[in-house]
């Protein structure tokens, strides 16, 4: 097993990203979909950090830092939406939530 180079990390992040995407497409519970979104976000973070590590500047890591804060904000608003949605429709199954009008 060779020392982990940049491409190893990138492959891992690609796989993680595809896992997240697969989750979003297949799963039916909106919360799970939301988690998979987080998964995809973290995949992106991993790629950024590995690039900053191998290209020898820290911008990548600052970028990740910002991404994390944005992700946090996003989760907050997202979950609030899901709660409101659940309170109105009493379901979290994606197939029931097909009309824009609540």
């Amino acid at each position, binding site marked *: 097993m060779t020392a982990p180079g940049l491409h190893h990390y990138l492959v891992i992040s690609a796989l993680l990203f595809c896992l997240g*995407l697969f989750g*979003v*497409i*297949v799963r*039916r519970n909106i919360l799970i*979909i939301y988690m998979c979104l987080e998964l995809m976000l973290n995949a992106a973070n991993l790629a950024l950090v590995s690039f900053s590590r191998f290209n020898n500047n820290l911008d990548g890591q600052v970028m990740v830092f910002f991404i994390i804060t944005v992700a946090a904000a996003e989760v907050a608003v997202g979950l609030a939406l899901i709660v409101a949605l659940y309170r109105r429709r009493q379901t979290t199954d*994606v*197939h029931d*939530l*097909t*009309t*824009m009008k609540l």
Partner: protein
Amino acid sequence: MNDALPWPILFLPLIAAVLITLFTQKRNGLSAALSVGAIAISFVISVILFVNAGEAAFESKINWLTVGALNIDFGMRIDSLSLLMLLIVTGVGSMIHIYSVGYMHGDPSFSRFFACLSFFTFSMLGVVLSNNFFEMFIFWELVGVSSYMLIGFWYQKSSAANAAKKAFLTNRLGDFGFLLGIIMLWSITGGLGFATLPKPGTTATVVGLLIFCGAVGKSAQFPLHVWLPDAMEGPTPVSALIHAATMVAAGVFMLCRVFDVFSLDALTVIAWTGGVTALMAALIAVQQNDIKRILAYSTLSQLGYMVMAVGLGGPPQAMFHLTTHAFFKALLFLAAGSVIHGLTNEQDIWKMGALKKKMPVTFWTFLAGTLALCGVWPLSGFYSKDSILAEAFKSGHLALFGLGVVVAILTTFYMFRLFFVVFLGKEKSQAAGHAHESPKVMTLPLVVLALMSCVGGLIGIEPFVGKQFGMTESHETLAIIAPFVHAPVAAFAGLAAVMVGFLAAMSLYAKAQTDPLPAKLQGLAILLRDKFYFDELYARIIALTQDALASVADFLDRWIIGGLMVRGTQGTTELVGRAVRFVQSGNLQFYAFSFAAGVAVVLYLVLYR
């Protein structure tokens, strides 16, 4: 002074027609006076012109339309040919105008009749006086329209309306050929006058034949003859004026006017068309029972004679026969009219009989007309028909000569059949019983026309017209016996034909109460009575071509263009709209999937191709 004269001749009837339609619709007397006055003055002026007509033919014209190389004049051309035709049209026309004052008395649209009559006279004079092809075509169509209005005068009668439509459309067919001929002539020679001659060759023959089409349409020659018998739906003076004396003669006049346009083989075609029409019409006339239809078919056959004469290279003979024919045929029609008038609109000859005593004037004038038509020796018909037969014999067309003689026999046969059944024998219905003689205003023209048809052969019409066509031989011998001296064969053949016809008619019809002929030759008689089924044939041809084509076009228009292209585009856009709507289904997973699929495709395209 001379060249200003023809203009009033032409425009007086038009002014009369316009005045009647616009102002004097209500006052019958005034409109009759206007119309008769107009044609009478024209007749007087044409007599003046005839009297001091010098040798030179003169023209006066104004420019009607000139664009690029197309310049069309509107002019008058006076020469012996048009002078003769002027005299016929205005002379016989006046007789008929006077006659119809009596005949149409009491008709609700009396003044409209006279307006149409004057308009017809205007267009007929236009044809006679025009000096170039295009102007002649204009008046050709106007004559067609006026005959349409006159035939369809009693438009309430659906049969009259159909007959009018049929007449006009058949004339239009003829005009189609005529206009094409004019366009071709113009494109070859660049000019439209009668003097412009195309270089001899196949195109010249084609042009000649196309122009002949016009005459075929107007003079009801063989293929386009179906409209003339139906044109009898119009009032009798109309039949007399249009379908005996003037309009149908326009075709023959036109052939004579443009005679040098025709190449030799065009002339043979013309001769044979004339011959075939003459024979066919005479055959049909034998089995007709309506008095006016018999006269109509006899006109057809006489016209065939004239066209044959032109085809044989003899415009003077044709014009001579045309003149004499105008007199006695107008006479016959008017006499028939007075018979119908007397028997209160009865037209079937088998319901008449023994009118000799009740209508003496009509009887004698009718007899004179019949004798003239059959070609009995001293009367005008003999001289004109004989000159045609002599021309045929002299120029070696023996087949046509034989055909002419056969037609002469048939003519005498059906005319005397008519004469015996109508005037002699016993009354065949009570209407015939209390028939009464027509009033003076109707019988006077009969007498005048009877005189003209007796003396017409001797007043030298042929030489008068002949000098324009290079006829030079002078007549030393007395005019009355000239034919026997010059062309004895033709003269005696003619007389023999008359005798044969007369004997056959007398034996069959002198005492006949019903028509014996169908018993003798069943199949042929029915064929003749139904006019060789031309009408049904044409109806089917039209149904086949015109209506079928029209319905195909309508189908195409309605479905292909209307449906396919318009509704098609509308339909496809709607379809596309519905398809796109399906994508916006609101299903989250579907969106995610399409997103992923999109990314996959883009990545593949960008990275691997």
